[in-house]
C-alpha cells in the first residue's frame, strides 16, 4: 500500500468540479474523489462561487414549497371516496 501523501491526487479541473457538485453534496464521492474535490475547492475562487451558487439554488427551491396551494376539487374527491366506500364489503366497515 502506498502512502497517500507521497502519491499526489489527480488534480481536478473546474470543468470536472462543476459536474461533481451534487455527488459531493450527496456524500457519494469516494474518499479519494472527495479529497480531490476539496483540494480544488480550496484553491479555486471560481469554484467556490459556483458551489455557493448551487447551494443558494437548493435553498431557493426549498423555499418554494412553503407556498401553500389550496386543494381544488376537494368536494369531488370526497364524492369519489363515498362512491368507493359503497363498494366496501359490509364486514370491513364495522
Amino acid at each position: 500500500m502506498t502512502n497517500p501523501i507521497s502519491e499526489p491526487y489527480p488534480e481536478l479541473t473546474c470543468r470536472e468540479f462543476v459536474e461533481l457538485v451534487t455527488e459531493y453534496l450527496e456524500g457519494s464521492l469516494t474518499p479519494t474523489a472527495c479529497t480531490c474535490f476539496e483540494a480544488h475547492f480550496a484553491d479555486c475562487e471560481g469554484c467556490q462561487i459556483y458551489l455557493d451558487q448551487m447551494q443558494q439554488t437548493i435553498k431557493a427551491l426549498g423555499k418554494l414549497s412553503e407556498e401553500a396551494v389550496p386543494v381544488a376539487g376537494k368536494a369531488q374527491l370526497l364524492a369519489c371516496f363515498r362512491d368507493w366506500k359503497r363498494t366496501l364489503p359490509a364486514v370491513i366497515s364495522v
Partner: protein
Amino acid sequence: MDFIGVQMSRLELSAPATNRRLINDIPMLTLVQTQELALIAALRRGDEAAFLSLIEQFHAMMIRVARKYVPTYEVAEEVVQGTWLGVLHGLDRFEHRASLKTWIFHILTNRAKSRAQREDRHVTFSDLLHFQIDGPTVDPDCFGPDEWWKFYPNSWDNRVEEHVLGQELYALIEQAVQTLPPDQATVITLRDMEGWTAAEVCAVLEVSEENQRVLLHRARAKVRTKLNHYFDRTNAK
C-alpha cells in the same frame, strides 16, 4: 406540518380492537409506520377524515408532480383524481413494501407518463428515458483550453436569501423547473422542494441511486444557470 400525526392520535383511539392487536403484534415498527398502518386501516374502513388528511398532505404536491409530465393544469388535475381512485381501489393490494407516500407517487408518475403519451406526445420518448447524457451542465465556453474558468462566475452574495420571496424570482424558478425534462423536474421537486430522501425518489421513479443523482444534478445546474443569467442581467442594470 404533521397533519397525519395529529389525525392519527384521534383515529387510533377509535380503531377497533382487531386493528390495535395487529399493530401491537408487529415488532419494531417506527412511529411513522405505526401511524401509516392505522391510516390505512382507517381508509379501508371508509373513514373520511383519514382520506381528507391524506388529500391535505399530498394533493397539491401530486398536482405539481403530474404537471411535469402533462401539458396543462387541467390534465394534471385529472391525472391526480385518477390516482386517488387508483389508490383507493388498490388499498387492498398495498403490501407495505414501500411507504404509502412512495406507493402513491409511483402510481401517480406512471399514470402521468401514460397520460402524457396518450394526450399529445407532450413527453417525447427521450424524455421518458430515465436519464440522458446530454452534455455538460455548464456552458463549455465558460472554461479555457485548460478547463479552468476563463472568467469566474459573478458571486450572488446572499441575493437569493434577500430575493427569494419576490414574485419575479419565484416565477423564474418555477418556470425553470417546469421546462426541465419530466423526470429531472420530478426529482428536483421531490428532493429540493419537498425534502424527500434519495431512496424515496428512487422508489417512486424506479431509478438507481446513481441515476437519481444524475437527474438531480442536471436539474439543479439548469436552475442555477437561469438564476445566474437573471442576476447577471439585474446586475448589469
